[in-house]
């Protein structure tokens, strides 16, 4: 063919609307590097998202993109992958889109284990709607919609993912785009549902998250294929350990039954008197 593609070939010419300082820039950087490293072609990759700041990402790549409705990215992506198993499907979105309205689909996506990669840019806030708590927000974080905080225990995405059957679970940080790129490469290569929770600071509504770069611990997680071991590991997890937690051996979802080649009109035999 031609020259191998570089990460620049996976970026579109559309300028992101994200605030300078936003962690999501690191994700575009990492994703495009990962896709180049995987030697994929933009036309064979689909980036599927829901609604939120981070869900704008498909248009910032030169791949096929699908910017759907709030919370439904995982199922749109699953439908696409099941109809077109030849494509590499990457589902992207934020913590609100993915864990709140999309929570049910997250749970079942882990169970279903369709071969695709889910990258969540977690900034512990609803940014696009200007600063409401999300499921990963700390219980005492004050906001207009929930003054003095929600009082709710945080959603623990890694725990839910592990308990629900995700085959690959990792945590990364946008402050390390190269590390994130490596994790994305692993995630895409790993069969089944690969989940990458990415800490991605929101400089506008959670400026204190600039501190995250000092709090994260790189390579603190060691991948295991043992669910019990991963569970014990999560029990002492404070949300800032980075790395691959779990790389399991579940076979990726395949629709049951062989795919036939029968001509359509042979189905009429079922109706014949």
């Amino acid at each position, binding site marked *: 063919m031609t020259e191998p593609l570089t990460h620049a070939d996976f970026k579109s010419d559309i300028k992101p609307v994200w605030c300078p300082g936003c962690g999501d820039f690191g994700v575009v950087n990492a994703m495009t590097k990962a896709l180049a490293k995987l030697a994929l072609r933009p036309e064979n990759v689909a980036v599927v998202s829901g609604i939120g700041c981070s869900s704008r990402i498909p248009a910032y790549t030169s791949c096929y993109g699908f910017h759907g409705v709030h919370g439904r990215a995982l199922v749109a992506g699953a439908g696409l992958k099941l109809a077109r198993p030849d494509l590499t499907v990457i589902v992207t979105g934020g913590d609100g889109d993915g864990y709140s309205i999309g929570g049910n689909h997250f749970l079942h996506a882990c169970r279903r284990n369709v071969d695709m990669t889910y990258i969540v840019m977690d900034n512990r806030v609803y940014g696009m709607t200007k600063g409401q708590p999300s499921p990963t927000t700390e219980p005492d974080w004050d906001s207009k919609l929930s003054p003095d905080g929600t009082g709710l225990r945080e959603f623990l995405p890694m725990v839910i993912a592990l308990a629900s059957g995700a085959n690959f679970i990792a945590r990364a940080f946008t402050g390390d785009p190269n590390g994130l790129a490596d994790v994305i490469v692993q995630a895409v290569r790993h069969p089944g549902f690969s989940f990458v929770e990415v800490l991605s600071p929101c400089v506008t509504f959670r400026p204190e998250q600039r501190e995250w*770069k000092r709090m994260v611990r790189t390579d603190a997680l060691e991948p295991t294929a043992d669910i019990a071991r991963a569970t014990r590991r999560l029990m002492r997890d404070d949300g800032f350990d980075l790395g691959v937690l779990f790389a399991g051996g579940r076979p990726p979802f395949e629709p049951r039954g062989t795919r036939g080649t029968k001509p359509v009109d042979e189905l009429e035999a079922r109706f014949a008197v």
Partner: protein
Amino acid sequence: MKRKLPRTVGEFMAYAWAMEVEAAERYAELAEQMSTHHNAEVADLFAWLARIEGKHRDQIMQQMGWTQPPDTAAFSWDTPEGPETTDYGDLHYLMTPYHALKLAEHNEQRAAEFFEHFAASKVPAGVRDAAAEMAEEEREHVRLIQEWLAKFPEPEAGWDEDLDPPQGAD
């Protein structure tokens, strides 16, 4: 991810080249971000820095007589990104040239330290010499940035105040 120590001048200069490439790309990206957010002064500054790093990158190519970019697949940075690469998270849409230059100063300092580290490591003499040379160049860049910084005093408190509240688009 342990950084491998370069064993030849070629390998070492590949590091240096990669550092400039990344720095140049990043400055260019940041220039675009600033431009989108109508911060023309800083956009222009980042664009200028991108050009300069680009020149450094090209100089290395020329110096080494490379016709093809070196293969940098084998190594990685100890830090999340190259020593001269600005962290995405350090930006603010209202940042002033002072802030941008402070970032650049920080980058050049880290680059100098990066090379000084090689110069003090167990590497062949040729590499040590090359490293020391590069370190000196980066120190010179630091001084240049500091000269520019003198023209842009630190802004007063309230530089990041925007009376308009954030907008939501979706």
